[in-house]
C-alpha cells in the first residue's frame, strides 16, 4: 500500500489487489487502515520517483514500436502509448501484438490492461474501461458509445455535472448541441470527445528521438558481455553504413540502444567530427566510448535487443582524391580527434580559437576539435608579444625593491627569489568597459580595503604564499580602479622570462598587487 499526504492527513494513495481485498480503499486514513489490517505494508508515495521509473520503463517498450510516449494528461505515470502504425504485422497481427505486450508484462508480475484503437483517446478509454478490446477501423463511434463518460478523460467536476444531468455514457453525448455542452462544461469536454472520435488530432510526443536510419538485432538468448555487444555494434554499423551509402548520406551522431530483459534501456551516444558512414570508424568510436564507461555498464539479466541509430544526417558523396584535391590527411586527423574525444571526453582535445578581445585570458578560447565553430575574422591574428604558456590562474608574487610604475627588480615566486635583469613594458590592459552595458553614471564608492574578498573555493586551494592574495579575475565586472593591469616581460639572471603584471595603481586605496601570468620561451 502507498500513502501520500492529502490536506495534512496520511491517506492511502494506491493499493494492490491483496490490500483492496482486505477491505481497504483509496483515500482512507492510514491509521484506520493499519487498525483494520495489522500486517499492512506501508510505503510513502513518491510521485517523481515513480514517474522517473515509469519513463525508463516506457523507453524499454521502444523495442516494440519506434514511437513510445508516456500519456501524462491524467497522471504523470501509468499510461503508456505506442503508435503501432505499420508495426503490428511484425508480431503477427494486432491481437497477437497486444497479447505479447501485455503478456510479457504480466509474466513479470505487473497488472496491465491494454487496448488498441484508432485514436489516443479511444485507446485510453478502452484500456481503462474495457481492457483487451481491439477496435476495428470504422467501428470506433459505435463501440465507444457504450462506455461510461469517465472514459473521456474528464475532470471530476465535469463527470459529476454530466451525471447530474443523466448523461452517463459516451453515446448520450453524440448529437447534443455542442455549444450548450461547451457553455456548461467547458471546452475541454468537447475537445476530449472529438479527440476520442478522431475528429481533431491529438499529438503523441515520443520519448526517444525517432531515427530515420537504424539497424537492429534481436537475440533469442540474452547476451551480457560487453565484447559481444561491441561485436554486434560492428555488424550493425556495417548494415547501417550500407543503407546510408545507398543514399549517399553520412551521419554525425550515433546512438546505441541496449534493451535489457528487465525493462531498462541503456543508451550510448558518440559524435563524429564530420559526417561519416564508415562502419569500422563507427564501431571504433563505440569501442573507445565503452572504455570510458568502466563501472557504468551493467547488463543486468542480459540484453535481448540492440539498436544502432544514426542522427544528424547530411549528404556525404563519395569523393575521389587526386584529381583536383590533394590528400592533405584532414580526414585522418578528424578521425583521430573523433577517437580521442570518444575515449577521453568531449573537452579533452581542444584547439585554440582566437577571440576578438585584448584581454589575454579571453583572447584564446579552447574549443573542442570535433565541434568547430567558424573563426572570428576580427580576432587579433597578429597580437603583441605574448607568452608561450599561460597559467590558468595567475599566481601571486612578492616583488621587492619596486620602482613605482616600473618593472620589479627582484621577485619571489614559489618561494624562490630571482633578480630581474631585463624587462620591457608596461603594456597596460584594462577591462573592456563596452562589454559591461553600463551607461554613463557616477562611480560607486571604492571598496573598503579592510575586507579583501577571497571566495571560499579559492581560499581552499593550496596557497603558495599565505599572506598574498590569490588572483581573482574580475573581468565580467568593470571597475575602473581595480582592473588596471600593467604587464611586463621580465628576464631573470638565468634567462628565464616571465610575464608578470601589476594589478591596481599606486595611490589607490588598495595597494597594487603583483602576479605572474605566463612564461616566455
Amino acid at each position: 500500500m502507498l500513502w501520500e499526504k492529502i490536506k495534512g492527513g496520511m491517506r492511502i494513495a494506491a493499493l494492490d489487489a491483496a490490500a483492496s481485498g482486505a477491505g481497504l480503499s483509496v483515500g482512507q486514513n492510514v491509521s484506520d487502515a493499519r487498525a483494520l489490517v495489522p500486517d499492512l505494508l506501508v510505503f510513502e508515495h513518491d510521485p517523481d520517483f515513480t514517474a522517473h521509473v515509469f519513463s525508463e520503463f516506457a523507453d524499454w517498450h521502444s523495442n516494440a514500436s519506434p514511437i513510445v510516449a508516456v500519456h501524462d494528461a491524467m497522471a504523470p505515470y501509468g499510461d503508456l502509448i505506442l503508435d503501432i502504425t505499420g508495426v503490428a504485422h511484425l508480431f503477427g497481427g494486432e491481437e497477437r501484438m497486444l497479447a505479447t505486450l501485455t503478456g510479457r508484462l504480466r509474466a513479470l508480475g505487473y497488472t496491465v490492461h491494454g487496448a488498441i484503437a484508432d485514436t489516443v483517446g479511444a485507446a485510453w478509454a478502452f484500456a481503462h474501461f474495457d481492457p483487451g478490446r481491439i477496435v476495428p477501423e470504422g467501428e470506433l463511434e459505435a463501440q465507444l458509445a457504450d462506455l461510461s463518460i469517465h472514459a473521456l478523460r474528464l475532470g471530476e467536476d465535469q463527470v459529476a455535472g454530466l451525471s447530474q444531468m443523466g448523461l452517463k455514457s459516451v453515446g448520450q453525448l453524440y448529437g447534443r448541441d455542442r455549444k450548450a455542452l461547451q457553455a456548461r462544461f467547458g471546452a475541454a469536454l468537447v475537445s476530449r470527445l472529438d479527440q476520442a472520435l478522431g475528429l481533431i488530432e491529438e499529438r503523441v510526443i515520443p520519448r526517444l528521438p525517432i531515427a530515420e536510419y537504424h539497424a537492429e538485432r534481436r537475440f533469442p538468448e540474452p547476451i551480457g558481455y560487453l565484447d559481444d555487444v561491441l561485436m554486434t555494434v560492428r555488424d550493425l554499423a556495417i548494415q547501417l553504413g550500407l543503407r546510408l551509402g545507398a543514399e549517399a548520406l553520412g551521419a554525425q551522431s550515433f546512438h546505441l540502444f541496449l534493451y535489457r530483459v528487465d525493462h531498462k534501456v541503456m543508451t550510448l551516444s558518440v559524435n563524429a567530427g564530420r559526417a561519416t558512414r564508415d562502419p569500422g570508424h563507427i564501431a571504433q568510436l563505440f569501442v573507445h566510448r565503452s572504455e570510458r564507461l568502466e563501472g557504468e555498464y551493467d547488463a543486468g539479466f542480459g540484453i535481448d535487443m540492440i539498436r544502432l541509430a544514426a542522427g544528424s544526417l547530411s549528404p556525404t558523396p563519395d569523393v575521389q582524391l587526386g584529381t583536383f584535391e590533394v590528400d592533405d590527411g584532414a580526414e585522418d586527423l578528424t578521425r583521430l580527434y573523433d577517437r580521442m574525444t570518444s575515449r577521453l571526453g568531449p573537452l579533452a582535445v581542444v584547439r585554440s580559437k582566437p577571440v576578438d578581445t585584448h584581454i589575454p585570458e579571453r583572447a584564446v578560447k579552447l574549443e573542442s576539435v570535433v565541434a568547430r565553430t567558424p573563426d572570428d575574422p576580427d580576432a587579433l591574428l597578429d597580437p603583441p608579444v605574448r607568452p608561450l604558456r599561460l597559467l590558468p590562474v595567475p599566481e601571486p608574487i612578492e616583488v621587492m625593491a619596486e620602482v613605482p610604475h616600473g618593472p620589479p627588480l627582484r621577485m619571489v615566486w614559489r618561494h624562490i627569489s630571482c633578480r630581474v635583469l631585463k624587462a620591457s613594458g608596461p603594456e597596460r590592459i584594462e577591462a573592456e568597459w563596452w562589454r559591461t552595458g553600463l551607461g554613463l553614471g557616477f562611480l560607486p564608492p571604492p571598496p573598503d580595503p579592510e575586507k579583501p574578498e577571497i571566495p571560499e573555493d579559492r581560499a581552499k586551494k593550496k596557497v603558495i604564499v599565505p599572506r598574498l592574495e590569490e588572483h581573482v579575475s574580475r573581468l565580467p565586472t568593470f571597475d575602473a580602479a581595480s582592473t588596471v593591469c600593467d604587464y611586463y616581460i621580465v628576464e631573470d639572471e638565468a634567462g628565464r622570462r616571465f610575464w608578470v603584471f601589476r594589478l591596481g595603481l599606486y595611490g589607490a586605496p588598495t595597494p597594487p598587487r603583483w602576479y605572474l601570468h605566463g612564461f616566455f620561451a
Partner: protein
Amino acid sequence: MPRPKPDLDALRARIAALEKRPVLAEGAGSASRNRPGGEDDLLGLLKAPAGLLHEIFADEHRQSGTALGFTLGLAGSLITRSRQALIYLQLAAEAQEIGLPYGLGFSAFGLTPDRLVIGRIGTVPELLWALEEALACRAVAGVIVDLASHPKALDFTASRRIALRSAAAGTSAFLIRYGTGRQASAARLRWHVKAGASAGQPFDAGAPGNPRFNVEIEKLRLGQVRQAEQHHLILDWTENGFVSVDPRQHSLAPLRRPAPPPRPQPAALGHRLSQAG
C-alpha cells in the same frame, strides 16, 4: 678462432630489422653527411629526420616555457603539406604547475594558434594511449608530451614502445621532462635545455631579446655510434629559425642561417584547407 663474417653481418641485419634502425641510420646519415664538423653536426640534428623519439629535459618547472619553445622549434620543421598537425598532450592536473600553451604566443614560432591541438588528459595511461594513437596517424607531424611529474607508467618499456611506434609511423614524438634525474629510456635523442640570458633588443639593451637556449645533447643514438666533439650549443630563436651563437662572444653572430621555419602555406588552387581558411 675468427668467426665467419657473413654470419655476423646476417645477425646484425636481423637485429637492425628488429630495431628498425636502417631507417634511422639513413636519416641521421643524411643529416650529418651534409654538414661535417662538430657544431654544424649538432645544428643538423635540429632538423632531425621524422620518426624519432626525442626527450627534452629542463632543470625545473619554471623553465617550462624554454622547453616548450625549443620543442616547438624542433617540431615546427617537421610540418609538411601532408602532415600538418602538431599535437600537445598534458595532464589536466598539471596545467597550473607548468602552464597551458597559449595560442597567441605560437606566432613567434611560426605557428598559427589552432595549429597546435592541445590534449588535456586525466590519467597517465590515457595519455600514453592518446600518444600512441596520435603517433599512428599519418597526418600528424609530431606529438609533444609534457609531463611535470615522473609517473611510474612511463618506464623503459613504455618509451621503447613509443619509439617503435614513432619509427613505424614516421611521426616524431617529443617528451618534455623536468628535473635533473634521468631514467633509462629508448629515446634516440636527449636534449638538455636551459634558458640563456638574451642579447637584448637592438634598440633597448635592457629589454629581453630573442629567446636564447643553452642546449646540450646528452644522448645520441642514431644508428651508428658517434662521438661528437662538442655537445653544447647556444642557440637563439629568430624569425629565421635557430641561429647558433658563439659561446665565447655572447653576441648576435649568426654562423649559418637555416631555412626559415614553415609558415602557414599560401593559398594553392584546388587545395581544400587553404580554401577553407
